């Protein structure tokens, strides 16, 4: 398969403007500037391209929801707040090919007829933000960013906004608050950001990987894009596998590649003679899948059909030698720390669950603890303000059910059944 998004990843340094152009870079921008935005929306619609930040909302539907008659100023925000544990694909795009990121913003900005674009980058990716800023300066110098881009009459300025931490800022309304210089607490919807976003103006927020596909679709067409997928998937995907595998990493592969191929062929399978016990298919906030699901094609619909979620498709593997309760604690403590504190079920409920998990792990679990934890899961998720708590509860609730016997064994023995077993 020909690499698309990762075509410059083999270089030891990210390509500068001249090298990026020599490889065909910014040609898609030229093509886009000569086309009708509506025709390009139609092209992207034919690919069914969905948001790769986790939510999976179809891009063309997002554009149509805002409409071509939305008032100005209009903002475009590229979301590079990747903080989902087990997800490290957006980092690669930002660090390894910043001009591709800029071209994606410019083409999308033209389709949206946006007035200003922001690339919102998590604070921990400061080095990536610097590389992007250098590339933006180069592009601006060459007439690719700013006023009258390539003589087309289209203006779009682009600012890089380095954030200062917090997972919740990847949620689009929390991101808008963070960008405006407020605490990154989510906003209530409606109004949707495409109606009233940044400073009350129509704003579209997109994941970086999603947008990086757009210039390729515009220049090569939807049929080419759709032909890249396998097993019912369309296009390519930056997949990653981490956790208990021999060779954790990321690979651009046809969308629809099976979990088995990803975990065993590319990541080498679990180390030290372990079997695969389970895996999270789409980052930390998705439900567990089991070895029986290994032949599932990794695309949105096929993963949804298993009852889990495609999410960012950052697969996290759990080996048979590791205590699943320890794995659950490793997942859950992240959400406890990252709750923004705005609503009570999330702020207080998640730490309470954490204390119960630790009590059971310490061998002090009580007979009703599993039921109590499941009851808390059922109450916290639907009563919280934003998708964060449901994202925290999903892996925990699914883990408590899938590994109920392990949890009960901890409670009954007063010790971890895995300790000393391997």
């Amino acid at each position, binding site marked *: 398969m020909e690499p698309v998004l990762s075509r410059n990843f083999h270089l030891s340094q990210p390509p500068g403007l001249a090298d990026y152009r020599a490889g065909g870079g910014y040609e898609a921008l030229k093509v886009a500037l000569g086309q009708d935005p509506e025709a390009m929306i139609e092209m992207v619609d034919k690919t069914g391209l969905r948001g790769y930040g986790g939510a999976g909302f179809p891009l063309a539907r997002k554009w149509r929801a805002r409409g071509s008659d939305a008032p100005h100023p209009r903002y475009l925000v590229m979301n590079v707040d990747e903080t989902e544990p087990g997800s490290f694909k*957006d980092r690669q795009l930002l660090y390894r090919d910043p001009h591709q990121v800029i071209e994606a913003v410019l083409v999308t900005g033209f389709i949206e007829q946006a007035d200003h674009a922001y690339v919102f980058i998590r604070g*921990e990716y400061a080095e990536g933000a610097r590389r992007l800023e250098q590339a933006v300066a180069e592009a601006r110098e060459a007439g690719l960013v700013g006023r009258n881009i390539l003589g087309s009459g289209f203006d779009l300025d682009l600012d890089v906004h380095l954030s200062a931490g917090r997972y919740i800022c990847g949620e689009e309304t929390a991101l808008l608050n963070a960008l405006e210089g407020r605490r990154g607490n989510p906003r209530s919807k409606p109004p949707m950001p495409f109606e009233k976003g940044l400073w009350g103006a129509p704003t579209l927020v997109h994941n970086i990987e999603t947008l990086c596909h757009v210039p390729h679709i515009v220049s090569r067409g939807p049929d080419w894009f759709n032909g890249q997928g396998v097993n019912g998937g369309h296009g390519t995907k930056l997949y990653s596998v981490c956790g208990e595998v021999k060779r954790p990493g990321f690979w651009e592969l046809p969308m629809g590649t099976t979990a088995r191929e990803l975990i065993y062929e590319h990541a080498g399978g679990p180390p030290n003679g372990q079997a695969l016990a389970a895996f999270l298919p789409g980052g930390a906030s998705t439900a567990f899948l089991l070895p029986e699901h290994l032949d599932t094609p990794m695309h949105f619909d096929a993963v949804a059909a298993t009852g889990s979620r495609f999410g960012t498709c950052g697969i996290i593997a759990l080996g048979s030698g590791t205590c699943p309760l320890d794995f659950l604690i*490793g997942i859950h403590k992240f959400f406890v720390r990252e709750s923004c504190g705005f609503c009570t079920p999330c702020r207080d409920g998640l730490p309470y669950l954490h204390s119960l998990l630790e009590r059971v792990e310490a061998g002090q679990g009580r007979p009703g603890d599993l039921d109590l934890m499941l009851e808390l899961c059922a109450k916290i998720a639907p009563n919280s303000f934003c998708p964060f708590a449901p994202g925290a509860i999903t892996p925990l609730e699914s883990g408590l059910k899938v590994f109920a016997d392990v949890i009960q064994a901890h409670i009954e023995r007063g010790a971890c059944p895995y300790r000393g077993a391997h």
Partner: protein
Amino acid sequence: MLTDHERSHLEEHIARYPEKRAGAIYTLQFLQQKYGYLPDEALAEASGLCGLSVTQLDELATFYTLLLRRPAGRTVLRICDSIACHLAGAPALLAEAQRLTGAPLGGVSEDGSVTVMPHVCLGLCDQAPAALAGERELGKLDQAALGKLLASLKTVEEG
């Protein structure tokens, strides 16, 4: 105190946003770079530039995890303890870091060289266990590498 040059740099950056307060995060990051953390005086300086009260700035500084309201070591070492790093030994690394520095997590080592903190996923899951020393990314850490790193940080000079 900000120099005239620093002040005009910040004013220029803030002016790129439709509202001044959107420049607050950049301003606080800049001041933290200068002072090592955000003392009350820094919030007062930011207040005049961003059009926010000191209390509003404190709300921001206490929300965002990369902003520090308390003095920190010359290098802040953030060891990731999210799932991939958790599985690869982050809890033992955090314990070892406390033993070697003699300071609790979030505290300053006696020689002032380092503050060690647990941190959320750094997007380095393929190199677990991972950390950030200042803005420098470190992967595949083990106890020996951590010991060497902490020893090397002792010689990093202030500012």
